[in-house]
């Protein structure tokens, strides 16, 4: 049982960006993937979720032993994978609560009890310091950067995926917002979700201790270790890992 990435090669418009990436994220664990700009971190996130522009040229992705390498993005989500977007997309005219419910029902293949579901959404929203009126707004339309990231976290907790890939969810947030995100991640982790936390800055790791830290440069995982590796990066940067 894990989110298992084996020797993944990923190309965008025929240029290979990831050159054989392997990871194994167990349920209830947090893995941080760190690396400088352009190292292939976001490519990893998109490739895992099945973005059509990122083609997997070899290697394998498994969710709890189910091979999802050749599945579409919606099928991957139904297999239990979630991506928190670095740049969430606006969907005009679709209110947050309708979006959440449609997504929940699609992922879990059930009819949600409307009352129970809306109570659950309300509860998770208050945990993220979101006003109840937030549920009526169109998805990401006119949202501030912080609101967008909090909607991603709201989805994380409401949609209950098995594994979540967080693509720089902490970037562009102030300290209070980062704390909120870290709390969300910890709650998700406690519920048994496996988390792949992609981040450029080690700052969020002050509030959240990852089980493992992986350093990625130039499309390869160059070093793995525990949280001390993140502390090292904080002091010395990525320079010593550059090829």
């Amino acid at each position: 049982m894990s989110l298992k990435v084996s020797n993944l090669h990923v190309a965008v418009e025929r240029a290979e960006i990831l050159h054989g990436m392997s990871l194994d994220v167990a349920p209830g664990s947090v893995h941080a993937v760190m690396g400088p700009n352009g190292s292939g971190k976001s490519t990893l996130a998109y490739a895992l979720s099945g973005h059509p522009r990122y083609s997997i040229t070899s290697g394998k992705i498994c969710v709890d032993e189910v091979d999802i390498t050749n599945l579409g993005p919606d099928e991957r989500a139904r297999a239990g994978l979630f991506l928190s977007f670095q740049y969430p997309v606006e969907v005009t005219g679709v209110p947050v609560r309708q979006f959440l419910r449609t997504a929940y029902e699609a992922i879990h293949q059930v009819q949600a009890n409307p009352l129970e579901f809306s109570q659950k959404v309300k509860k998770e929203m208050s945990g993220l310091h979101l006003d109840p009126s937030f549920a009526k707004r169109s998805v990401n339309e006119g949202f501030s950067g912080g609101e967008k990231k909090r909607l991603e976290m709201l989805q994380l907790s409401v949609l209950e995926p098995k594994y979540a890939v967080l693509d720089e969810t902490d970037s562009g947030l102030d300290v209070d917002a980062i704390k909120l995100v870290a709390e969300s991640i910890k709650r998700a982790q406690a519920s048994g979700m496996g988390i792949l936390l992609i981040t450029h800055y080690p700052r969020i790791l002050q509030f959240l201790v990852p089980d493992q830290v992986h350093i990625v440069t130039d499309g390869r995982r160059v070093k793995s270790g525990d949280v001390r590796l993140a502390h090292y990066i904080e002091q010395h940067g990525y320079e010593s890992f550059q090829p």
Partner: protein
Amino acid sequence: MQDTKQFQQKNIEPNPVAYQYMAQPGISLKLVNEISHFKSEPEWMRARRLHAFDIFLSKQIPQWGCGLDKIDFDSIHYYMRPVEKRATNWDDVPQDIRHTYEKIGIPEAEQKYLAGVMAQYESEAVYHSLKERLEKQGVIFEDMDTGLRKYPEIVKQYFGTVVPTGDNKFSALNSAAWSGGSFVYIPKGVHVDIPLQAYFRINAERVGQFERTLIIADEGSFVHYVEGCTAPVYRADSLHSGVVEIIVKKGARVRYTTVQNWSKNVYNLVTKRAFVYEDATMEWVDGNLGSKLTMKYPSVYLLGRGAKGNILSIAFAGSGQHQDAGGKAIHGAPDTTSTIISKSISKETGRTSYRGLVSIPKGMTGCKSLVVCDALLLDVSARSDTYPIMDIRESDTVMSHEASVGKIGEEQLFYLMSRGIKEQEARSMIVQGFIEPIAKELPLEYALELNKLIQLEMENSVG
């Protein structure tokens, strides 16, 4: 059988030769005479019809727009007795239309009414309590033929004053051959608190080919009139040409909602216009889903200081369809305000056009106008055009115009699909979000049906 009984009560001697004649396609002076005679109309209406027929013959088919010369006027049935209209057999209604009724969950009785199998939707119980309430308020709500019979003076005073017979070839045709439609009068200060729906009218002929509607909202009154329905309306006839005239007096407000879904063989050419007086408000909410070709531009003539006109137009064109829609606002008084918001969606080889006019003549100071037209293309073969005309002759005017054409973006689709939503559903979510500003103005059941219909259309596109 009810219809037959009525004819007997009216002691109209049926002329078998004439009826046979009426069943023939094509229009002639003789037929126009027959229609008027059959309806026992006053002489002035007969004269008006004959005059209109002359104008119809003399007017050219509009050359702008979308190939109306394909209409074969000689193959069209212009009038049929109501008894004949029931001749349609449920089995003759095309499978896809019956299928759609089932999918959007319309009760069987209503399905049959909509498909023209039943002459009248059996909603009498609902209708009677409504009718009693309306009568107490002094509201008149009849089909146009009954209106003419019972209130000839009011009809004579207003009929053809908003849309003159000679306005265009199709308004002339309608004026010559009209049948059915609604006649509505709202007395001073009366607010009708539930929407008046055309299908509640008792004894009404069902939605006609050449329906004629006249609504008069007296000072300070309010009414919301709902025409047609979102369910597909099957007609073997290939031409629908209605005229709607609305008079909104001082301080009154009228909202007129249409969602047309004619079967895809129909040319739908409708003239809709409202005269809006001092501090009055006219709102057109106009949805176009069906028909082969629709040409319809609901208009507001703002004729008194402070008058307001809002036009919301939504069009969906699937394969082989052309929706040529929009709106017109003529500012005929100072300090008047107009808003035209148009949203269109084109799928496969579907084509939508926005055609609009805002006219502010010199001297009409303090006017405001906002025009927004957004188009969404679902396929590379889909097409959308805009023909906005702004004729602004007065410098003391606030005018703004926004237009956009978009496609469903890869990123938007990926975002929704990454949440487990299938591509088809994701696409229809995006489309529904796009039309939401207009859908929310519809009565709830219409909005729901509209969403379901668009979902169906989207499903069909994926196969």
